[in-house]
């Protein structure tokens, strides 16, 4: 099918779908109104039973923690998939030829951007601390394991953006990122399996709950968020590391 014919088919299908959907949208509640019972049912659970002031975190990591387990598994599987796709079967790591090294050095010197380096050096530690803060205070203020982990991963990529690939490959070790990611996933699974040994249901909140507003409120959620942040940060850093290695150390044709 030619490109023009395909475009016509898509636009016609969209028009047909719109003819059905737009009258259906008129029956949905308008933006101002939220009629559903579930959101209002969750709020008292979050504060009274879990002592968590961040209701979204209580939903994501406790009430519907099983979904988060699935999401975490998806992320780990994606990291494994990327690693498998970008890591060829057997390849001898050829050391870069002399002219390649000179060219890289020349490029690095030409592209020396002191302003970017300064900005990266300033932002990196602040972002790391901010990501850690967000992870630890998941149950009180907006934030959590995913957000904190993503921010930590973004901060680590600043090493590549502010300096160059040599600094990145020296400071970021893929093997250690593998270990950290697996450890985070293990913490997650262990926290969900322990209540089975204690005679409770899977993924029950078995740790003691501190007063709401304190760091340990939410029980299991505190340690769970740390595990999630480790897994997410290491996972994203791994994906970026694989891509960058594919970019800077391309496979030499044998």
């Amino acid at each position, binding site marked *: 099918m030619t490109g023009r014919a395909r475009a016509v088919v898509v636009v016609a299908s969209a028009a047909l779908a719109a003819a059905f959907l737009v009258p259906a949208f008129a029956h949905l509640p308008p*933006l*101002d109104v939220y009629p559903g019972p579930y959101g209002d049912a969750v709020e008292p659970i979050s504060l009274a039973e879990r002592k968590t002031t*961040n209701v*979204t*975190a209580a939903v994501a990591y406790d009430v519907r923690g099983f979904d988060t387990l699935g999401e975490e598994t998806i992320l780990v599987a994606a990291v494994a998939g990327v690693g498998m796709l970008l890591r060829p079967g057997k390849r001898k790591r050829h050391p870069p030829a002399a002219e390649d090294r000179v060219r890289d050095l020349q490029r690095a010197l030409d592209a020396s951007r002191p302003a970017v380096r300064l900005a990266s050096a300033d932002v990196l530690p602040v972002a790391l601390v901010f990501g850690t803060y*967000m992870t630890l205070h998941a149950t009180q203020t*907006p*934030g*959590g394991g*995913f*957000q904190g982990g*993503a*921010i930590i*991963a*973004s901060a680590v*990529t600043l090493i590549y*953006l502010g300096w160059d690939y040599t600094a990145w490959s020296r400071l970021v070790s893929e093997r250690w990122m593998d270990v950290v990611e697996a450890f985070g996933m293990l913490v997650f699974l262990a926290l969900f399996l322990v209540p089975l040994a204690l005679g409770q249901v899977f993924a029950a909140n078995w740790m003691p709950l501190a007063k709401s507003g304190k760091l340990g409120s939410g029980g299991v959620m505190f340690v769970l968020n740390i595990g999630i942040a480790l897994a997410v940060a290491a996972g*994203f850093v791994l*994906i*970026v590391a694989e*891509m*960058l290695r*594919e*970019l800077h150390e*391309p496979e030499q044709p044998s």
Partner: protein
Amino acid sequence: MSPLELVAFLLVALAGGAVALERDPKRQVVALSFMGLVLALLFVVLQAPEVALSQLAVGGVLVPLLFLAALARTGQRREP
């Protein structure tokens, strides 16, 4: 609907159209980053701070970085 929400929704529609209809991948990455930012803004307007934080970090930094790395890698092949 307040003007703020109206503007946020329209910006998202505009950004989404720009990303999908821009054929040049290099320009599309910039549009993608802009869409991530505008989406985070919409999430804040809709009172969803957690989602906005996640979208900012993931859709604003990490995904465009992956796009750029993939682009650079596939652009490399055309050199020789």
